[in-house]
């Protein structure tokens, strides 16, 4: 690629891609199971599970590709993820009856070792870091 971007999948980024991929897998599996087996038990929670799964898949692919557009997509996906885990995490404590089953984001992702809570923070920091490397490289390039 011609652009001087530090790829989002190099160095620490590759680990981020791996963890995102894993969560995408876990969230997709869980959500397919929940929706196909007992959707009526908690439609809202299970729909949110599906949304989470889609977001993880999008974030994984975007981080792995790491082009200029992918970076924007990743930023959007990870921002939604951050908002989602905070909102659903809070809601699962305030209105536990709406979340009879664990979803990836309920209780701030405690079922997954709080990885869902930490991951978007790392993701956003990583995007910022690689992004500022881009700006630095552009600033150093004359013309």
């Amino acid at each position: 690629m011609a652009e001087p971007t530090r790829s989002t999948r190099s160095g620490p980024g590759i680990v981020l891609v791996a963890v995102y991929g894993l969560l995408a897998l876990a969230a997709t599996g869980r959500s397919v199971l929940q929706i196909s087996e007992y959707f009526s038990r908690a439609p809202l929670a299970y729909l949110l599970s599906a949304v989470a799964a889609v977001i993880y898949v999008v974030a994984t692919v975007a981080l792995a590709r790491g082009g200029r557009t992918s970076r924007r997509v990743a930023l959007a996906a990870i921002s939604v993820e951050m908002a989602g885990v905070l909102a659903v995490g809070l809601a699962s404590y305030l209105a536990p009856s709406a979340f009879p089953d664990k979803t990836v984001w309920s209780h701030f992702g405690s079922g997954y070792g709080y990885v869902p809570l930490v991951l978007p923070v790392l993701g956003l920091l990583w995007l910022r870091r690689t992004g500022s490397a881009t700006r630095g490289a552009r600033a150093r390039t004359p013309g």
Partner: protein
Amino acid sequence: MLFPLTVVVLVAAVLLMGLAGWYAASGRLVDDRLLLVAAVLELGLLVQLVVGLAHLRTVPGGGAEQATFVAYAVTLPFVPPAAVFLALKEKTRWAMGVVVVGAFAAAVMTARLQQIWNLRG
């Protein structure tokens, strides 16, 4: 899952994690030794898949438990190759981070598989 098989898989996964951690600390990349341990893990997971599917009828619980069991058993053999593939392309010590993540995931999923298996009467 058959207990000895689970032990083999878990030992291989833990070994792979340890080896990758050591490699990361000493700045090494994927080599034959690491691939060998990953291959042992992979072999264990494949045997686990075959044994699991063969005994599927004895897996207890409603459709949900069975579906989870099958999903885990089928997904597991994809984890080590995916981790190794990503790690091979990365030429810094972070490659080992991917191996650690993959091995850890394999261990957790195998433990979960064993849990469901143990629900059998």
